C-alpha cells in the first residue's frame, strides 16, 4: 500500500510537470483554438429524455460558442465504453471511437488502472476553480479512488428513496424502520438485484448502517475480513427478505423496473441515485404529484459523477472544451433546474460570481427531497465485488 502511494505520487508529480505549463491561460486559448472544428463523440447513458435533451442543449451551445461539434453517443452502460476503449487500445487503434465518456465508480477505476485515460486535465480547466472541493470531497475521490485530475466532475448523486406520499405516510428513515415498514406492508418493498448499480448501493447502505464501526469499511478489505465485517448486514437482510416482494425470492433486475413497479402500484418504495429524479418523474407525468422523496436520517451514500477523456481520443482538445463548458456556472445552474434535469451541481455557491450564486438556490417541487440528509462516503471499492458475490451466493439461487 505504502509503495503504491509512493509510486502514484511520483507518477502524479511527473505527469504534472508538463501539465503546469498547459494550465496557463494562454495555453487554454491554444486548446480552444485546436478544438475549433473538432467532432467530440460524447458517450453517455441515454435512458432519460430529460438528460438527452440537456446534452443536446450543451451540443448547441458548444457549437455556437467554440465551434465544437458534440455528438451524443447513446449507450446503456458506461462499462460498454470501458470495454470498447480497452479493446481499441489493445488492437493498437490510435484514433479511438470515444472522445468523452460519462463515468464514475468501478468503471473509472477500471479505466484508471488500465491506463486508459488521458490526463490529468481536470484541475487545469478554467472553470474548475468554481468546484466545491472542500464541501464535496467526492469530487476528488470517486468511490474512494483518488481522481487525480483524470476526470472532471459533472454532477452530484445521493441515494434517495421515493414513493407515493398518499400511501407512505411516515417514510422509513433508517434500515430498522424500513424493516418495520416491510413487516407492516408485506410484499410491497424490494430492491434491484445486485450487480445492478442501485442494488449494490442498497447493500452498501445496509453495510454502513449495520456496521459497528463504519470506519472499518473505508479501507482495502480481504475476503476473510469481509466475512466478519458483513455479518450484521446479512443478518439484517435475512430478517428483511421474508417481508419483501415475492418473499425475497425474486428481485427486479434493474432500478428502472423497480421505478416502473412503483408507478404501477406494485411496490410502495423505489430508490434512485439522483435526489431530483422523483420530482423529475412527477414533472413528466410518470408519477403522481403526491410523490415524496427522502433519505435516511443519519445519511445515505453520496458520490459524484464525472466526464473523462480516453487515452486514444481523437479530439482531446474538443473534449476538454466540452468538459469545461459542462463545469461552467451557466451549464451547471441550468442542469440543476428541476424542469431541465435536476442534477445537483458540483460547484460551490460561495465561489461563484454573485449573479450566478443567487440562481443556485435549491428550488422545491412535488417529489423533491424536503429534508436532505448528510452524504456518506462510499465503502472501499474492494468491497463491491465481495458483497456482490456474497449476495448471489446467499440469495441468488
Amino acid at each position, binding site marked *: 500500500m505504502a509503495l503504491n502511494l509512493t509510486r502514484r505520487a511520483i507518477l502524479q508529480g511527473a505527469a504534472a510537470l508538463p501539465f503546469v505549463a498547459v494550465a496557463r491561460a494562454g495555453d487554454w486559448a491554444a486548446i480552444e483554438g485546436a478544438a475549433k472544428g473538432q467532432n467530440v*463523440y460524447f*458517450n453517455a*447513458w*441515454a*435512458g*432519460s*429524455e430529460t438528460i438527452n435533451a440537456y446534452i443536446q442543449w450543451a451540443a448547441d451551445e458548444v457549437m455556437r460558442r467554440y465551434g465544437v461539434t458534440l455528438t451524443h*453517443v*447513446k*449507450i*446503456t*452502460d458506461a*462499462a*460498454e465504453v*470501458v*470495454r*470498447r476503449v*480497452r*479493446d*481499441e487500445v489493445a*488492437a493498437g*487503434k490510435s484514433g479511438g*471511437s*470515444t472522445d468523452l465518456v460519462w463515468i464514475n465508480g*468501478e*468503471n473509472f477505476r*477500471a479505466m484508471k488502472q488500465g491506463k486508459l485515460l488521458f490526463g490529468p486535465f481536470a484541475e487545469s480547466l478554467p472553470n474548475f476553480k468554481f468546484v466545491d472541493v472542500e464541501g464535496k470531497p467526492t469530487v476528488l475521490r470517486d468511490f474512494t479512488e483518488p481522481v487525480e485530475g483524470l476526470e472532471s466532475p459533472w454532477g452530484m448523486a445521493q441515494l434517495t428513496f421515493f414513493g407515493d406520499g398518499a400511501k407512505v405516510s411516515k417514510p422509513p428513515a433508517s434500515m430498522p424502520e424500513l424493516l418495520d415498514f416491510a413487516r407492516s406492508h408485506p*410484499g*410491497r418493498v424490494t430492491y434491484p*438485484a445486485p*450487480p445492478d448499480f442501485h442494488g449494490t448501493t442498497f447493500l452498501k447502505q445496509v453495510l454502513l448502517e449495520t456496521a459497528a464501526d463504519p470506519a472499518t469499511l473505508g479501507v482495502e478489505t480481504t475476503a476473510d475480513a469481509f466475512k466478519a465485517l458483513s455479518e450484521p448486514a446479512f443478518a439484517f437482510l435475512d430478517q428483511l427478505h421474508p417481508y419483501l416482494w*415475492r418473499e425475497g*425470492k*425474486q*428481485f*427486479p*433486475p*434493474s*432500478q*428502472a*423496473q423497480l*421505478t*416502473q*413497479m412503483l*408507478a*404501477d*402500484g*406494485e411496490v410502495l418504495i423505489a430508490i434512485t441515485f439522483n435526489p431530483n429524479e422523483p420530482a423529475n418523474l412527477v414533472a*413528466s*407525468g*410518470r*408519477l*403522481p404529484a403526491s410523490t415524496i422523496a427522502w433519505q435516511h436520517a443519519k445519511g445515505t451514500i453520496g458520490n459524484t459523477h464525472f466526464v473523462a477523456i480516453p487515452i486514444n481520443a481523437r479530439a482531446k482538445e474538443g473534449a476538454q472544451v466540452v468538459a469545461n463548458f459542462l463545469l461552467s456556472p451557466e451549464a451547471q445552474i441550468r442542469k440543476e433546474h428541476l424542469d431541465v434535469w435536476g442534477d445537483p451541481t458540483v460547484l460551490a455557491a460561495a465561489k461563484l460570481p454573485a449573479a450566478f450564486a443567487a440562481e443556485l438556490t435549491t428550488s422545491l417541487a412535488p417529489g423533491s427531497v424536503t429534508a436532505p440528509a448528510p452524504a456518506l462516503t462510499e465503502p472501499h471499492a474492494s468491497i463491491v*465485488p465481495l458483497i456482490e458475490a456474497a449476495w*448471489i*451466493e446467499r*440469495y*441468488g*439461487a
Partner: protein
Amino acid sequence: MRLGAAGTLPLIVLWALPLLAAVLTALALAGSGAAWSGFLHHPQAAGGMFLAVWTGTAATVMALGLAVVMAMALHGTALWHRMPLLSGAALAIPHLAFAIGFGFLIMPSGVLARLIAGGDAPPNWVTTQDPLGFSLTAVLVLKETPFLLLMLWGVMAQGDAARAFDGQIKAARSLGHAMGSVWLRVLLPRVLRRMLWPIIVVWVYGVTVVDLALVIGPTQPPTVAAVIWADLNDVEAAVNRRGVAGAVALIVALAGIAALAWGFAKLVTPALRRCLARGPSALVSLVKPGRVVSVLVVAIYAAVLLILILLSVTPRWPYPALLGQGVGISSWRQLAAAPVLLSIGIAAGTAITALTLIVLWFESVAQRRDRLLLALAIMALALPAVTIAAGQYHLLLRLGLTGTVPGLFLVHLTPVLAYGFTVLSGPYRSFDARFVAAGRALGASRWRVWREVKAPLLRAPMLTALAVGFSVSLVQYAPAQLAAAGRYSTLPMEAVTLASGGNRSLTAAYALALALPALLAFALSAAFGRPRWR
C-alpha cells in the same frame, strides 16, 4: 444457371468466413482455465442452465404442437392462403415488445389483475418472473408458434409441393384414412422432416434468449443466458472471459441435448414406423381445438397490440385504473428523430443480399453440402448474440471496419442470412427437379429455366425469406451496438438505450415503430407471393 463452385464464393467470403473468424475469436477469448472454473463455480450456473433448457425446450414442443393443431384447422380454408400475412403480422412484432405487452397483460398490476382481482393494491400473483419461468415459456410459445406455422405452410403450400400433398391426401382418404389419420401418418412425417432446422432454430433461440429473460423471466437464479449476459457486460475483463466460457458451456450443453434427442429418435423410429404403418383409422383431425387455439392466439396478439398502443400514449397507468391517466404523445414525438432510414436501408440491403447469396449457393452445389452451411447457420443463431457480436467486433476492429457502414452491414448480414437459409432450404431443396429437367429438355438455358419456371414457383418462400430477413435485421441490437462504435445509431440501439431508463411508454412506441416496417415487408411479401394460377 450452371455456376459450379464459383457461385458459392460470395456467400463464403461475405458470410461464412467472417462468421467462422468471429466465432474463433470469441472462443479464443474463453481459452483460460480460470474463466472455466469461474463459470462452473458460479452459484447461478446450474440452476440457470436448468431453467434455460427447460423453458426453451418446453416452449418449442408446445409451439410446434400449437402450430400443427392450427394448421389442421386452417389447411384448406381461405385463411391458409393468407398465411404469410397472418404469421407475418405476428412475426413483425419484436419479441421484446411482445414480452412487454404480454407482461402488462398478466402481471400482478396488469390488465387481467385489474379486471379480475381489483382492490386498491395489486394481488400477490406470481405471474411474471415466476421461479420456474412459466411466463417466459408462455411468451416464447406465443411468439414462436406463428414462425413455425409459417415454416409449416412454407413446406406444404409451396407451388408443386401443395399439389403433391393434395394428391397424397386424396390417396390416403380413399384408402379409408380419416383426416386425423392422414395428418398423423402421411403429412406430418414428411412435413416435420423438412422443418427440422427451423425447429432447432426456435429451440436454440428459446434456450439462449437474453432480453426476454430479463424482462419476464425468473431472477434468482435467472436463466443461464441472463447470467452470461451480466458477465459479458461487466467492466472486469476476467468476468467477461467467464461469460464467454459460460456461452461455450451453453453451446456444449445444447449439442449434448441435441445428440441425446437424435439418439432417442433413432431408438423409437422403428416402433413409430410400425404404429404409423398400421392401417387406416377413423382418427379425426383436431379442427375444432385448432380453431379454438387459433382464435385464442389471435386474441392474445390483438390484446398485446392494443396494450402497446395504449401504453405508448399513456405516461402513467397505475393500479387499479382500467385506463391510463392522461394521454400524451411525447413518446411518439421523440420518435421523430429516430434513425428510421438507416435501419430500413440496412434491413432491405442485407435481406436482398442474403437471398441472392443463398440462391447462388443452392444453384451451385449439391444438397448434401447444405449441411455444412446449416451447421454454420445454426451456430450463428445458437451462440448467444452477444458472443458472436464480441468476436465480430474484434474482427472488425482488426480490419478497421468498426464505425463504418460496411462493418454494420456485415454484422447484420450474419443473422439475416442464417435465418434466410434455414427458412428457405426446406422449400427450395424440395423443389421438384423434373420441372427443371422438362425446361432443359425443351431447350431453354439454365438461367431461363430458373427465371421463368423455378423462380415463379418458388416466389412465395423466397419472398417469405426476404420478409423474415428484413424483420430480423431490423431488431439486431448487440452486434450493431458494438460494430457501430458510437458512429451510427439504428432503431433498436435507440430503443434499448431509452428502455434502459425504464420508460415503458417510450419503449412501447419504439416497439410499434419497429413493428411497422416489418409488418409492411410481410404484407408486401404476401401480396406478391401469391401463385400465379390462383
